[in-house]
């Protein structure tokens, strides 16, 4: 009886015991990520947002690291992915026109990576590719038969273009770890961010190995008038068009009346 009760107790408690950091066989640090806001609202006057991604990182035994911090922190904020056609301009008959194109199944509309040290010092390129750490390691899933060097040329083009508009960000060394326990980084979202679900992944990396990771979510949504305009233009396009026409005719007419009086 007592043996069975003990076995039952162990069976019931096992998940809790296994999950507890003290008894865990892989001695991974505890990572508790948080974001300053889980919802970014796009409405009139929106000029972009600055997200504060922060959290605590503890030793496997629940204490904080003393002396030199034994791990690096990398934070990746990734927006919704979309299938895109990427076109490259080339000079033909003296004019710059779209010549070559490539298609990708999953290009993130937004991608930001920040780390506590330069990425090349933290991970090797293989690990970076597995976890998609850094703009050079983005996996866009090219469609169709396309040569690898061509893929990298197009990806480099996309990255440069989106970096210029603030949609792709790589900020190495921006993550600060204070007192060996609190990490934090600010990540900017430009006003042209796409609405949708964003995921923030935090990685603790030691000796080139990812030893802990945690995920949290951010939603970017349009609200109020901006949301209504977007929905109307798509679903009630006839009425929306008539509204635009009515607005322009009315404003033109009203200006004529006002200036005639003045």
């Amino acid at each position: 009886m007592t043996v069975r009760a003990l076995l039952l107790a162990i069976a019931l408690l096992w998940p809790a015991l296994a999950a507890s950091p003290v008894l865990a066989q892989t001695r991974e640090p505890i990572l508790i990520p948080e974001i300053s806001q889980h919802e970014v609202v796009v409405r009139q006057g929106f000029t972009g947002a600055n997200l504060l991604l922060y959290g605590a990182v503890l030793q496997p035994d629940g204490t904080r690291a003393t002396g030199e911090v034994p791990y690096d922190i990398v934070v990746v904020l990734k927006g919704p992915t979309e299938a895109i056609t990427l076109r490259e301009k080339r000079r033909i008959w003296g004019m710059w026109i779209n010549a070559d194109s490539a298609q990708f199944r999953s290009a993130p509309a937004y991608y930001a990576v920040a780390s506590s040290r330069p990425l090349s010092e933290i991970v090797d390129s293989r690990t970076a590719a597995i976890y998609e750490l850094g703009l050079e390691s983005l996996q866009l899933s090219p469609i169709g038969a396309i040569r690898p060097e061509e893929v990298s040329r197009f990806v480099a083009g996309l990255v440069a273009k989106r970096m210029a508009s603030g949609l792709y960000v790589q900020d190495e060394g921006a993550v600060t770890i204070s007192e060996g326990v609190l990490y934090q980084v600010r990540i900017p979202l430009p006003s042209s961010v796409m609405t949708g679900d964003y995921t923030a992944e935090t990685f603790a990396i030691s000796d080139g190995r990812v030893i802990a990771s945690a995920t949290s979510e951010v939603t970017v949504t349009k609200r109020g008038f901006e949301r209504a305009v977007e929905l109307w233009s798509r679903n009630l396009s006839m009425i929306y068009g008539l509204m635009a026409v009515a607005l322009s005719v009315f404003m033109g007419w009203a200006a004529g009346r006002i200036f005639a009086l003045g």
Partner: protein
Amino acid sequence: MDVYLPIANLSVNGLVIVLLGGLTGLLSGLFGVGGGFLTTPLLIFYGIPPTVAAASAASQVTGASVSGAIFHAKRGGVDYQMGAMMVGGGIVGAGIGALLFRLLQSIGQIDVAIAILYVVVLGSVGIKMAMESVPELLSNRFERLKRAPSKRRHHPLVASLPGRWRFYKSGLYISPLAPVLLGMAVGTLTMLMGIGGGFLLVPLMLYGLGMSAAVVVGTSLFQILFTTIATTMMHALTTNAVDIVLAALLLLGSVSGAQIGAKFALDARPELLRAVLAAIVLAVALQMAVRLTFRPGEIFTVAPL
């Protein structure tokens, strides 16, 4: 003043857009053109996606031509019969333009096509206007009086079209196909370039169709008003690219600018106005040509699959 544009999906300085509308409105009041040929490239230059720019500029032209059309209609300066033919053609043309737009978009050449159209259309019109207005501007009044007034006569091509109607107000006995085709051509360009086409219509109606000068401006405004309305509807239904916030900002500037411009136009010398307009038209064409031939800042463009 930051304003978020819900269709263009970015935030802009609202004051800049209002001023930009005001500038084109001023031109439209001064020269009797819609000003769309200036709005669309300036918006693209400012960073608005080209499709949204062309779609929203059309409604600005509507606003800029309303009070002018009403003004001329009250004076009896609109040939409704001729105007209806042209509007009918214009609506068909906007439909053709929408199909072309979609086709060019799918093969990824819409921005290049728009740029080439700008260079060709504005370049040729600008050169023609400059060639006419500059000698006129340089010659003195006496010489101008000496010159025999040219006989008004429609183009031989117009005379070759089948079937003839009497257009009393325009003083013409021509085939109704001529204004329909003219409207169609301009409607297609309106859809693709976001222009009203006033600077094209007026000379074509005057020298191509040979219409009486008294009804040319009024009738062209009538045609522009209804064709841009049709274009806005066409964009709303097909490209979903009309940004009503952007349009409202542009309108705010352009309708006021148009009124101020119209006041100035009363005191200015018409040949000087035409020369200035020619210079502006040529500058836009040149800027587009430069953009086409010089290495662009952005080699890559993204389109949703």
